[in-house]
């Protein structure tokens, strides 16, 4: 037991989880911005933008995240010399955030579109009837209701994003899955307890997000 506890003095487990939380936080913000823009494109009257939004979603939803993140390091950094920060580690972190954001934006877009589907037709017709054109109607009438209807699917995307932040391993970011591998390789006799520490860490992060978004989605749901 002492052996096991001393392992946590040698390895910075909390720090590794902190990296995952940072990845999740920034990727959540960027993918939300990008996803909202894509969703607006898909419901806009302009065919070329609709087409672009649909193409984006279909391409990135169907590409494995591992491929996208590996592409960031092997392709963008290794081949095209894209550097997002002077510091080596920060550069990898930012490339991983970029990959996570690009991938999850497709799911955010779908979540918002499913939220738009919960808004009754009459709302859009009413917005039109009082003379609002597309952008004001979307901004003042449709999106506020759609976002409230999209809380549950957006929560799912956030949970997926939290778990997927471990895939940053493929982008040479030292985060929890990386540290777990290192710890198990060092202490092969403690495989199971080490795994449970990391697994429970994710349970502790993910379960409250699920409970919170379920509660929020019920509280914010527009009564119809």
């Amino acid at each position, binding site marked *: 037991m002492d052996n096991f506890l001393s392992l946590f003095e040698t390895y910075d487990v909390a720090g590794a989880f902190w990296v995952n939380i940072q990845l999740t936080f920034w990727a959540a913000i960027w993918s939300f911005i990008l996803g909202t823009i894509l969703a607006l494109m898909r419901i806009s009257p302009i065919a070329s933008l609709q087409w672009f939004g649909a193409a984006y979603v279909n391409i990135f*939803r169907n*590409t*494995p995240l591992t491929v996208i993140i590996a592409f960031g390091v*092997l392709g963008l950094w290794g081949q095209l010399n894209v550097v997002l920060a002077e510091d080596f580690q920060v550069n990898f972190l930012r490339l991983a955030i970029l990959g996570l954001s690009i991938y999850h934006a497709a799911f955010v877009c779908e979540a918002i579109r499913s939220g738009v589907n919960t808004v009754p037709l009459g709302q859009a017709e009413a917005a039109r009837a009082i003379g609002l054109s597309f952008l004001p109607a979307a901004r003042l009438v449709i999106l506020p209701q759609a976002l409230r209807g999209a809380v549950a699917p957006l929560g799912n995307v956030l949970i997926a994003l939290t778990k997927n932040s471990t895939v940053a391993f*493929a982008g040479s970011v030292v985060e929890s899955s990386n540290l777990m591998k290192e710890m198990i390789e060092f202490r092969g006799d403690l495989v199971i307890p080490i795994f449970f520490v990391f697994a429970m860490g994710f349970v502790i992060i993910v379960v409250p997000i699920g409970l919170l978004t379920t509660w929020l989605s019920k509280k914010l749901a527009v009564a119809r």
Partner: protein
Amino acid sequence: MSAQQVLFDAPGPKGKRRILLGNIAGVLLVVGLLAFVVVALAGQGQFAAAKWTPFLEWRTWEFFILPGLLSTLKAAAVAVVTSIAFGLLFGVGRLSHIAPIRWFAGLVVEFLRAVPVLLMMIFLWLALSQVPFIEDPIFVSVVTALTLYNGSVIAELVRSGVHGLPKGQREAAMAIGMTPGKSLRSVEIPQALVAMLPAMVSQFVVILKDSALGYIIGYAELLQYSRRLGVGEGNLLQSLLIAAFIFILINFILSSVANRLSTLLSFRTGRKVKKTEDPELAAAAPVP
């Protein structure tokens, strides 16, 4: 509000002109973006013939892409079968009328859904490597990790499918003298499976995508082979693009099958196979 066209009026002459202008601007924006990427890539010499010709040679496909694709498909196919079995077992477990079985299945499913697949994969890989009689620990751990996660998602699909059935089905089964367990097995589950078929096929996309996580623990799948090819031929970017394209193609076909199935089944059941509105059950929807 699925008819998006109500967001704007049927355009008059002025509106049509604006949409046309918007369209031109949109096309210019997209084309400009693409042109920027293409010019940047060309500047790096990424369009040199030598970088692309390997994909015209049979040996590239024979020794790199097809073997990689084959092991990706192998892992995904095995994981699909085992996760359906796992999902049925635990889905029925969660619906069981014996409380301890229900709790146990619930605990296992909730735990597995919260843990990242990669974490399970690395754990299984390192744990199984210590077990002497397992021949291919990497393959076993890729398939097992995919099964544990996707099986738990399918278990939730089965549960939400059964909850979505009309009450009368169970009442009728009880009325003709079936026990609750018998009613579940021979009346409710078969109908729930048909209703959940599209969502299940969408989950197969997740399995196929997640099989690429095997790259991290050194499973020789499509991404791994593409990297090797790219390092060998000096065309890493092109190899990764081809690998991504293959993944997208297969997943796109699977997604189309799922869409077709849901239209087909909506004819069969006489109503749309509706997406569940209950957020708790919506959590079971296929998510990466």
